[in-house]
């Protein structure tokens, strides 16, 4: 089976396992095209979606993946949970474990919390985003979408545009793409690029036009509205003028470039509506691949017993 019991992040994750997940995900894509889009692979497997932070898209994508695999799922979200009553993270975790759960899909605002969860419970743990740390399933679906488009990942040139500092999507993409042999250039306001990001083996440019000329594909990150006016980004129009994927900018370049976005989009801020709806974007493929790759991850992690002692 896969080398690691959990999927906590893509830093140090084996390339061959990323490839297995992507390959298997394409088989699940076929399942999703059937009249009846369901297989019995995870019958009897119970999965809890533990969401300590709102995330409609990721939760729905996971839930759908679980249902397509015939797993039993339970949703637990912080807004309705006992956490608000002061119950500790540990108590919540152990309560869930006591209910005989096979796997936990967790979204949490604190970096490292899925790793922390492994200290308390034995179930398979899948990180669905931990604060500004990682979002490995998003990166895998991004890579699957690139693979679908280009037939390879090795040697691809990917620009990641936006608020790198506060992005778990960026960090997981960087680790995954580097492992798979792609080249990555980051692009965004200098104060939203971590000081030490060079250590991860990526380049940085603050000139979006240069990055567009260089790249095969752009992964455009959502710029959080909350960052505006907190001094991190002076204004929407300034951001758009320097880092927005505008239709004028795309037209001027006269080149084929694939555009991705993890959603939800701020149309007119980081990306123009006309670009988002245009031919060069694969944003809706990403959504479909999201379900397929999450099916693949769940199938491969929950399906087989792990080798003794691993």
């Amino acid at each position, binding site marked *: 089976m896969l080398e690691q019991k959990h999927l906590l992040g893509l830093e140090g994750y084996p390339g061959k396992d990323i490839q297995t997940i992507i390959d298997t995900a394409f088989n699940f894509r*076929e*399942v999703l095209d059937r009249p*009846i*889009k369901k297989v019995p692979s995870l019958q009897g497997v119970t999965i809890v979606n533990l969401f300590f932070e709102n995330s409609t898209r990721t939760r729905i994508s996971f839930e759908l993946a679980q249902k397509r695999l015939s797993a039993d799922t339970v949703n637990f979200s912080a807004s309705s949970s006992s956490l608000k009553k002061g119950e500790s993270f540990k108590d919540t975790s152990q309560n869930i474990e006591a209910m005989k759960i096979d796997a936990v899909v967790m979204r949490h605002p604190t970096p490292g919390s899925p790793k922390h969860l492994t200290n308390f419970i034995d179930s398979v743990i899948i990180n669905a985003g931990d604060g500004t740390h990682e979002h490995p399933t998003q990166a895998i679906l991004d890579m699957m979408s690139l693979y679908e488009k280009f037939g390879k990942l090795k040697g691809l040139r990917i620009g990641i545009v936006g608020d790198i500092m506060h992005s778990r999507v960026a960090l997981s993409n960087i680790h995954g793409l580097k492992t798979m042999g792609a080249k990555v250039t980051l692009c965004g306001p200098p104060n939203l690029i971590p000081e030490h990001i060079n250590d991860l083996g990526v380049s940085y440019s603050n000139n979006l036009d240069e990055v567009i000329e260089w790249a095969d594909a752009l992964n455009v990150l959502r710029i959080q509205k909350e960052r505006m006016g907190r001094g991190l980004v002076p204004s929407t129009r300034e951001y758009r003028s320097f880092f927005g994927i505008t239709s004028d900018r795309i037209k001027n370049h006269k080149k084929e470039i694939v555009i991705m976005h993890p959603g939800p989009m701020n149309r007119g801020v980081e990306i123009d509506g006309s670009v988002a709806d245009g031919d060069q974007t694969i944003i809706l493929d990403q959504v479909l691949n999201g379900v397929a790759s999450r099916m693949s991850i769940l199938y491969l992690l929950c399906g087989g017993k792990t080798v003794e002692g691993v």
Partner: protein
Amino acid sequence: MKKIVLMNKEAVARSITRLCHEILEKNVNSKDIVLIGIHNRGVPLAQRIQSKVNEMIGVQLERGSLDITFHRDDFRERLVVPEVKGTDISFTLNDKVVILVDDVLYSGRTVRAALDELNSFGRASMVQLAVLVDRGHRELPIKADYIGKNIPTHEGEHVNVTLEETDDIDSVLLIREKE
């Protein structure tokens, strides 16, 4: 370990021809027949049946392939990543006569999984099973409609089908673990 050749290239070809005759005999309206090969060796077998039928009556039957990996009942006990070949059925099975094709019929579990998976593609009017070899030892109440050759086996014996498309040579071998 000992290998005994039970069928050679010619014997395999004869069996396939006979299977085709039986299929056509039993199903008068050949236009409704679709062939579904089960991975791995059911796929080339279905292909051969398709071209043989075409040779015989000039009708190209519809054909697809089925990978039962996601429907296996032993997945959770296995320790390796299953190699998924992928299912390819690009047409609806509604009101069709589906002929499932596989190389060896043994416990019946593969066929059970295949029957289960077929449901995802529509409601066939009838499902029939064609195999090159029936080696017995069923674990489920499943029976083939068309059998190339019955090979009763004992404990410690296996039947190994090889085909040119997958293994470079057509043969059916009986393998005994110990003599």
